[in-house]
């Protein structure tokens, strides 16, 4: 189901180029520190065009830091990150968003005193997205009808599930080709959780690459293309979700803490 209007469709030129460049996001052996403490140790991962990749692992082992680093919110000590072929190390978050990569944080960071409409509008701040703002609005409201009912409501008055929808919607408004999403299901009821994953899958089906951070593999096994497992700041497993479930050690790690 392609819910986006004509203007947001990928142009033939982009398709041509992307057809050649299969890798959308490539993280190459990055080391990341918080002061003197090393959080990420030679982490490498890859998301191909249009893939839905999940990053699993216990809490506090660096998953969120990895996302923050990819999105330019945290410096890299060594290593490289390529997005659509060019390096994004050292770029400001503004430039990274402009190149099509958007981050939806665990803490959401919505603008509390602004309405749903204003939050969404600001999502389209970057110049690429401003021309397509109306189509983006349509897409978001078709995906999240509840948001459509609450256009004038202040973000601080939304429920947990609604704020998550708004956070995702705001990310979509940026006309991003790639979304890095950090634990969207945190704090939500099982019903809402399933809903959120379904919506993210829909977003992915529209050609947007997804890197999703999650704790529990069972929830995401059905629709992820590949998974990575991170422990102690290192990638300890890379493969499909089925492979992960077949691996005994992983099963302990992943299901033991669900």
């Amino acid at each position: 189901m392609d819910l986006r209007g004509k203007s947001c469709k990928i142009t033939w030129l982009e398709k041509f180029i992307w057809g050649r460049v299969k890798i959308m996001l490539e993280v190459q052996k990055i080391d990341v520190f918080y002061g003197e403490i090393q959080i990420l140790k030679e982490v490498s991962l890859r998301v191909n065009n249009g893939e839905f990749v999940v990053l699993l692992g216990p809490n506090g082992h660096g998953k969120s830091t990895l996302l923050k680093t990819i999105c330019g919110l945290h410096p890299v000590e060594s290593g490289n990150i390529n997005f659509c072929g060019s390096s994004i190390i050292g770029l400001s978050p503004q430039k990274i968003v402009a190149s099509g990569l958007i981050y939806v944080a665990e803490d959401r960071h919505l603008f509390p005193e602004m309405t749903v409409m204003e939050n969404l509008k600001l999502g389209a701040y970057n110049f690429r997205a401003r021309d397509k703002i109306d189509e983006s609005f349509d897409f978001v409201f078709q995906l999240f009808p509840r948001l459509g009912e609450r256009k004038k409501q202040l973000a601080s008055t939304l429920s947990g599930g609604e704020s998550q929808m708004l956070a995702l919607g705001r990310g979509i408004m940026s006309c991003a080709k790639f979304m890095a999403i950090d634990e969207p299901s945190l704090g939500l009821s099982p019903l809402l959780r399933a809903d959120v994953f379904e919506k993210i899958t829909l977003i992915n089906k529209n050609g947007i690459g997804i890197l999703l951070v999650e704790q529990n593999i069972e929830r995401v096994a059905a629709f992820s293309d590949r998974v990575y497992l991170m422990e102690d700041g290192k990638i300890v497993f890379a493969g499909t979700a089925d492979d992960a479930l077949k691996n005994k050690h992983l099963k302990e790690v992943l299901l033991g803490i669900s």
Partner: protein
Amino acid sequence: MRIDREIIILLVILSILAFSPLFFHDNPYVLHFLIMCLIWSSVVAAWDLIVGYAGIFSFGQLAFFTIGAYAAGMASLYLGLSPWLGILAGGLLAGLVGVLLGVACLNLKGVYMALVTFGLHLVLAPLLTLGRPIGTGGSRGLLGIPELELGGYCFSALEKVPWFYTILVISFLSFFFIFFITRSSYGLAFRSLRDAEPFARSLGVNGYKYKVVVFGISAFITGIIGAFYAFYVSSVSPRMLGLDTFLMVMIMLIIGGVGRFPRVLAGVLFISLLNEFLRPVEQFRSLIFGAVVIFSIILMPQGLIAFFENKFFQRKKNLAGGKKKLKDTQL
């Protein structure tokens, strides 16, 4: 209690100073310089206690100084109190105001604290000017404050050496007191409140009590010094509250390095020397001071000594091949 290297250096310096009148006894200029250095050292040390150790952005230090000075001067002039008692009175009154200020500011943080305490400073000048009827001497201040006496000997403005030894002793006592506090459980409480207030509170540290206490102590010490100053120059006036003086003392604190007693005293020396060098260009002094403040905060946020320390250690690190840092991304 740990006695670290810096304290020993300080004690050595003070001992050397104790002998200096032997060399300078006929050079009142140098003695005056040293006396002022010691005066500001104690004020800065007391200010460091409240800003550096307790993390409270109090800008009222000079107000306490002036209150101490006025109280002592007025007590001596009008009540005929012996000057030593006058000094004590100055300290006590300043301490009392400090405690009241602490109570008024119990729940304030950061900027708000700075603004209210600075408000005290700003409102004191008009109050003193308006206080002419109660004897504050209005905008001209009070002149002719009687001199200190010690066992029959009358201090005079001409003979600086007794003043010097007096302030040396007072400073030594202040430093000792402050050192003692910072290393005691009070000091620990102050620092815990500075670094992690909610956590400290959850452990039962009574933030309110310590806040009021540190205000009181800092104000008391500063008041004593202010009182001494009043006798030293035999006068008090609202001009003591000038912004340049305030900033001069503040920059002594910053350049010295907040929160590291006795390092902070290096700032006093540096700025006092700078002051002297700038005397020929008196009219540009404030201008240069303002610029110095800005530059030193940007370049040396941790203070003079720490700045040189870092440079020294950075060199060592580079030689050993430290971490390579890629271009910083904005945070």
